[in-house]
């Protein structure tokens, strides 16, 4: 079962990387990387069960958080060309 899940995840990772490399706009790439991060989290968990040692889930946990932070940081940078200083219009949010 876990072999099938790992294979499915690897196949999906290939498709996601294709979108990240093709993606016409920056948002397509960002979406693909974010989606790839989710798949990596699942893959780490599935691989832990596959090898019979599911104790490495902490890394998957760290990943699911870092992935989100990275996406939001890039988006914020792209929107304001800056990383959180300066004055914004209040209505921006």
């Amino acid at each position, binding site marked *: *079962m*876990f072999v*099938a*899940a790992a294979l*499915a*995840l690897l*196949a*999906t*990772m*290939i*498709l*996601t990387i*294709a*979108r990240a490399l093709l993606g016409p*706009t920056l*948002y*397509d790439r*960002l*979406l*693909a990387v*974010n*989606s790839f991060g*989710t*798949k990596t*989290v*699942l893959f780490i*968990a*599935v691989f832990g*069960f596959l090898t019979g040692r*599911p*104790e490495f*889930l*902490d890394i*998957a*946990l760290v990943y*699911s*958080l870092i*992935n*989100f932070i990275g*996406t*939001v940081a890039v*988006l914020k940078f*792209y*929107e304001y060309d800056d990383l959180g200083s300066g004055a914004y*219009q*209040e*209505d*921006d949010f």
Partner: protein
Amino acid sequence: MPEFIAILLTLFAWVLMLIGCVFIVAGGVGLVRFPDLYTRLHAAGVTDTGGTIFMVLAMILISLSQYQNPWIAGKLLLILFFTLFTTPTASHALAKTALLSGLVPKDEHGKPIIDSPELAQKMALSRAPKDGSVNLTPGASDNADNNKSDGNS
């Protein structure tokens, strides 16, 4: 009958894992084949969340029935919890930033739904109306203007 229950749990986990795999692969195919950003966002965002729910639930069942280690189930629950928060939030932020940058969504004939990139920006900046209705007609620009002036005053 603990053995019988364990077998039942494993079978149920198999089914859940299979559903999760179908979700994930469908999302990957949609991410490659869909025509523009917003449809791809739908494909990836929905299937990431759905697939994660099913796969993590399957792994929780396996960890309870085969490993008897509550820590593993706890970590998996935390992963599920964070993913349920972060994936939709990231999708929302992506869509909003794309709309704010003037990327106009298109319908199935390739015709833009929103008239101009400027209108898309205004819609991204405006807040949703109180009654929850979404107004996609060109008249929505007045609404957006009103909201904008309210926000600045």
